[in-house]
Structures are given as C-alpha cells and as structure tokens.
C-alpha cells in the first residue's frame, strides 16, 4: 500500500478537526490561538499534498510556495495575536474568553 493523496487528506482533516475542537472547547485565549495554528497547518498540508499529488502535476511548486507564505503569515499572525492577548490580559486581568465579553473595557 503506497501512501496517496487520500492519506494526506485524512491527516489534514484530523488536524483541522482537532484545531477546531480546541478552538471551540478551550476558554483560554492562548490555547485558542494554538487551535487556530492547527487549523492553519491543516490547510497548508492540504496545499502541499494537492500540489505534489493532485491533478496539477509534480513539476509545479505552486502549493509549496503558497505553504511557505502561509508559514510566514502564521508567524506574523502569532506575533499580532499574542500582542492582543497581552493587551487583553492587561485590560481584564484574565485571558479567559468567557469573561472578556464586554466591548467596552
């Protein structure tokens, strides 16, 4: 049995589901951020998998390049998000999202 596109997609689906699960269940903003990262990486995995094994053909690197951009974006996103979390903590003395429901601090 060779590893095909279907396997990647299953892994990626698992990753996505786990990320979504974390995002929904966890109340801690930092943990939710982690869930988001999982979802993002599931998507990037999909791109690389489609690029390598999909109908596009192995000689094209579009998916890989896109994935690299995505990683960079994820890093930038993490920076911004963590800064926001920090501000959230300053304002509410908590990063529990069930407590930080007021728009007006």
């Amino acid at each position: 049995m060779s590893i095909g596109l279907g396997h990647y997609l299953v892994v990626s689906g698992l990753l996505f589901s786990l990320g979504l699960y974390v995002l929904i269940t966890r109340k801690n903003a930092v943990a939710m951020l982690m869930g988001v990262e999982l979802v993002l990486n599931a998507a990037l995995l999909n791109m690389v998998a489609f690029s390598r094994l999909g109908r596009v053909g192995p000689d094209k690197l579009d998916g890989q390049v896109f994935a690299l951009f995505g990683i960079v974006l994820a890093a930038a996103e993490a920076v911004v998000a963590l800064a926001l979390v920090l501000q959230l903590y300053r304002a509410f003395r908590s990063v529990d999202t069930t407590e930080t429901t007021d728009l007006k601090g």
Partner: protein
Amino acid sequence: MHLVPFPLLALIPLFPLLGAAYCGLVGCGLFKKYGEGAIHWPAILLPWGSFVVTLIAVITLAGAGHGAVLHQRLWDWFRIGSLSVDAAFQIDRLSAVMCLVVTFVGSLIHVYSRGYMKGDASYWRFFSNLNLFMFSMLVLVLGDNLLVMFVGWEGVGLCSYLLIGFWYRERKNAAAGMKAFVVNRVGDYGFTLGVFLLFWGLAAAPASLLRGQGGEPVAAAAVHEVAVGHGEVATSPGEHGAPIGEAAGEHGAAVSHGTEGSEAGRTPVSSVTFRDIERIMEDPARRDAVLNQKVLGFGLITLVCLLFFVGATGKSAQLPLYVWLPDAMAGPTPVSALIHAATMVTAGVYMVARLHFLFAYSPVAMTVVATVGALTALFAATIGLFQYDIKKVLAYSTVSQLGFMFVAVGVGAYWVGIFHLVTHAFFKACLFLGSGSVILGCHHEQDMRKMGGLRKLMPITAVTYFVSACAIAGFPFFSGFFSKDEILWKAFDSGNMLLPGGGIILWVLAATAALCTSFYMFRSYYMTFSGTYRGAQGHGTHDAHDAHGGHGHGLPKESPRSMTWVLAILGGLAVVGGYIGLPILWGLPNAFETWLEPIFEGSHHLIHSAERGHGAEWGLMLFSVVIAFSGFFLARWLYKDAKSPIPGRLLASRNGLVQGFHRVVFNKYYVDEAYQASFVNGTVGLSGLLSWFDRTVIDGIVNLAGTAGRFCSGIQGWIDANIVDGAVNLVASLSMRAGRSLRKVQTGRIQNYVLGLTAGAVVLVVIGFLLKW
C-alpha cells in the same frame, strides 16, 4: 369768472388747525402748569389771525374785479378715471361773506368763552374743539369742490358732537351729542348720494361734443353714449324744457363771450368742482343733455337737488331732521352761539346758495326747499312760544330763522338768504351769548321762571339782549327788519313756486312765524329781565330775595368784561348790520346784493318775479312792522314784570281745548316721542330681531358646523390613535421583539461564534455536496 392765485388762502383754515393741535396735543400739560392763559391766548389769537387773512383776501377780491375767484390749489387729492379731485381752496364773493362771518363771530365767541369757561377743568379741550370747529367750518366754506366741502361738512358735525357732549359726565349731554351725530348722518347720507348722482349725471353729454374734445379716455366716452341713450328715451321736452330752451338761445351767446376762449370749449367730462359744474351747466348742449336725464322717473337735477337738500335739512335743522338742535343746547353756551346759531347750522343754506346753478333748474326742488323752510319756520316758532328754558327758546328760534333762510334760497333770492344768514349770525349769537351771560349770572340756572329782574343786575346783558330781540323780531331800522322783510317780500313775489297762488302760502306761513318770533323773543326778554329776581329761594316768594341775598347762591351779577364787550359789539352789529343791504324800494344802495351779484348771475335768468308791484311791497313792509309790534305788545302785556295774571290763568284753565293745545305745543308736538316710537324703537327692535337671528340661526349654524367638525375629528382621532398608531407601534414592537430575540445570538463568547461558523460551514458543505449530486 377768472381764477386769481392767492397763496395765503390756506392760512385761513390753517391758523385754527394749529390752535386745535396746540391745545389738543400739548394743552393739557401746559394748562396744568401755567394755567388758563397758556390756552386761551393762542386759541383766541389764531382765529383772529384767520380773520385778518380773510380781510386781506376780501380786499384782494374786491380789487380783482367782477367775478374774480381767489384760488389756491394745494395738491392732487386723487384721480380715478375721469374724476379728478384737488385739495384746493377758493374764495369768491359768496364764500368771502361766509368766511368773514365765521372768522369774525367765531373769534368774538372765542374771546367770550374765556370768561364763560373760566374754571372748567377741561378748559384746554374746549378751546381745542372750538378751534377745530373753526378749521372745519372754514374748510367747508372755502372748499373748491364738493368733496373738500364734504370734509368740512363732516368735520363740523364731528366738532358739534364733541362740543354738545362736552360735559359728558352727565348722560343727558352725551346722549344729546349722539343724537345730533346720528340725525346728521341721515342728512349726510343724502349729501353723499347727491354728489354721486350729480357726478354720474353730468357725464351725460352728446357723444359728438366729447369726441371733439380729444384727449378724453375712450371709456369715459362710452359711458356717455350709454347715458345719452338713456336720455334719448325721455328727450321729449318735459315740463321745464321749453323755458330752458329759450334761455339757452339768449344765454348761450353770452356764455361764449363771457368765459375765456381757451376754457369755453373744454368743459370736463364730469366734475365735482363747483366752477366746472357751473361751466357744464352754462354749455347749452351739455345742459340739455343733463336736464333731459331721468332717474327712476324723476328729473336728474330735481333728484340731485332734493338729495342735497336732505343733507341741508340735517345740518341746518329743518323738518323733519330738526330734532337734534334743541337737544344740542346741552353743550356750553358759546358752542350754542357759534355752532348752533351763527355758523354750522347755516351750512345748509350756504350749500343751496353755492349750488344755485342746479337748484334754479328744478322748480320742484325750489318749491320743496321753500315749503319745507316755511313750514319749519312756523312749526319751530310755535314750539318756542311755550318753552321755559331760555336756551330752548333760542334753539327753536334758530330752527325757525333757518327756515326763513331756506324760504329765501328756495324762491331763488339767494342773496337775501345769505343776507339773513349774516344778520342772524349777529343777533342770534348776541342772544345766545346774552343767555349765556344770564345763565352764568344765575349760577347755571336756565329756567326763565327762576329768573326775572335781571335788568338792574346785569344792565349790559339786558340792553344787548333787548336790542337783538328787536332785531330778530324785525323792528324797523334794526338789521333783522331788512333781511326778514326782504325774505317775506321775495316769497310773496316769487314766480317760481309750483304751489297754488305762487308764493302767497309761503308768505302766510312765514308772516305767522314772524309774529310768533316777535312774541316769544319778548316773552323771554320780559320773563328774564323784568320784574324781580325769582331765583335762589322758594318759588313764588317775590319779596324775600334781599333777606336771602348773602345766602346760598347770592344775587346774579354782571359778567366779566371780556363777555360784555363781545355782547356790546354783537349787539351793535345787530342794529347796524342790516345797513349793508338796504331795500332797493327805498331808493337806497344795496351794497350786499351788488357784492353777491356776480355769483348768482348764472341763474338769474331762471328766477321769475310775480310782478306784484311796489304798492304791494310797501304794504307788506308796513304789515311786517305791524306784526313785529303786535308780537312785542302782546308779550309786554302778558309777561312784563310777571304782573299779568293771564298766562297763569290760561295755564290753569280747565278748558279742554286750551289745555290740549298747550300740552301738544309744550311737548313739541310729540315729535321726539314719535321719532322715538317709530325710528328709534324700530331700529332697536330690528337690531333685537337681528341679534336674535344672529344668536339662534347664525350661531346655530356655526355651532352645528363646530359640533360636526368635532364629531368628525373624534372619529379621525380614534382612527389615528388605533389604526395608524397601531400600525406604527406594531412595526416598532415587532422590530423590538426581533431585536430582543436576535440579541441573544450576540453573546460575546468566541466559542459560540466559532461553533456557529463551523456549523454554517458544515451546512454549506453539505448543501454543496447535495447540489453536486
């Protein structure tokens, strides 16, 4: 007739107007601060200023030659279509006479008022009103057209009202003022209708003449053609068509010579200016067109003259509108002398004389004027016989004398009417002022039964009163003799009257009135001045006055010098005033007739004499002397020193005829009561009826509309509150409810959102999956 510009003319009415403004606007304050002098000096001097200007004008007029008219045009009053009215004054020989009388007698009465009104709290108001009256009267006299005259006409009515009700705190006086005003309105209505009808009627001229004039508006010409068409229906010569036709033949030539060439051909379409009306009536073609007009079956000119005469009966207190004048005696006595004897009440006579060129063309109107005058003369004279109020006697005497003047102007003897107006102004003003002096001396007692014996106490008043009484009674060589005798003769000799026997009926009426006049005047003289003083104590105790001399009111004493001087001047004029118009019969020069001749020459050819000859005239003159003396001796016999028992016995008589006669005459023939029952109650009843109609029907309709409106608005309000508002509220509450439920979605918890997001994505994916299938 030629116009001479005279720029001083407006000063004549302006001076008293200034006085009125001064006293009326600042007089009250100055009076309180500086006393009476601050009021009466300007108020007296300004009318004298008018008199001086009038004298200058008269001298200028006399020097300007035959038929000159001094004229001053102030400004365009208004122009509407072919009607153009100037605010302009003119003084011709007729208005000069009036103006002299008004300014001279008026100024004298101002002087007199200084003494009479002394101590009155409204001193300033009195002089303001008196000056305003002078202004109005002078506007009336000097007006160059009917409308300016009408302004003065209404102005004197207003001042009369103000001054009759001068002591308005007494209801009776205020009511008398109101009565004068209302009765005068009736006459004024006739005057205005006369002006309208005359203006309309004068436009009736042959269309060809009007086209020849050029420059006239086309619309005006169209009006005339209609008017002429109107006239042609009745073109067949009427009762007075023939003599006019003859007259036009011989007079037409004279007219075209007499008037200035430039003016002769261009008479205006129609006008309210006296000059222009006279010129239209001198133009034969236009005059015939005017005379042939019929309105409601009457000749136009007759109707116009009768309407004007209605105005004159109101202002000059003739039957049937004389009722206000006796009541007008409620005013201060100088007012009675100035307004209700010497000047204002003669305005009607002046107006008829001024419009002689209309009246002369209507024998009907002339007859009516003369007859009404004669009837009034007799009617008022009989009422005067039994009055006890000294001013009431003089009031009825004034009504009666005005009747004489109307007889004169009615029979076409215009100059005689004006002559009597002048002499009457002198002697009646003197009588009124004398009565004022008596009233002041007797502490505002007017009942002659409480006077008596004043000859010794008030000698100057007594002498002037006696002299004036002689004048009004027509004693030979007093002024009233010349004027009254001339009236009686002209009435007797008139050839214009449509009455059976010509003017003889008029003469009988007037001569009887003259007899009554002589009687009641000397009755009032003897009751007032002879015998012993009956005032200030109980009735009938003749000999007790010395004991009570210092008690209560005290004995009457002579009035101050400012009053007695005026009495003396007027009394003197009452004697010599007649010498300006000496009878031609005596071969003496009649300055007055000569002076007025140019004014009345336009209608001269229409006035006819019955040619009764000099013998008749001498006879009548003797007869009127007999009348005057018999009245005098009768009064003397009955009333001198209150000794004769006959008047008392007559009054106490049980004879039904005597009593009934006395009661009817003493109560003034119940005319006031009749008017009260007919016109006043009729008007009040009608107003009650109309008020009832207003309250029930008109108000009912209004209230019904109101109720219906309220009902409709109630329904609409219900619809608004329930349906319209309901819909709005429904929308609002729906959105609120939706908002409230949707708000729950917006929890603010990220997990919920993410769950929703995921669920949505799953649903979309499922849908997409299903659709692909």
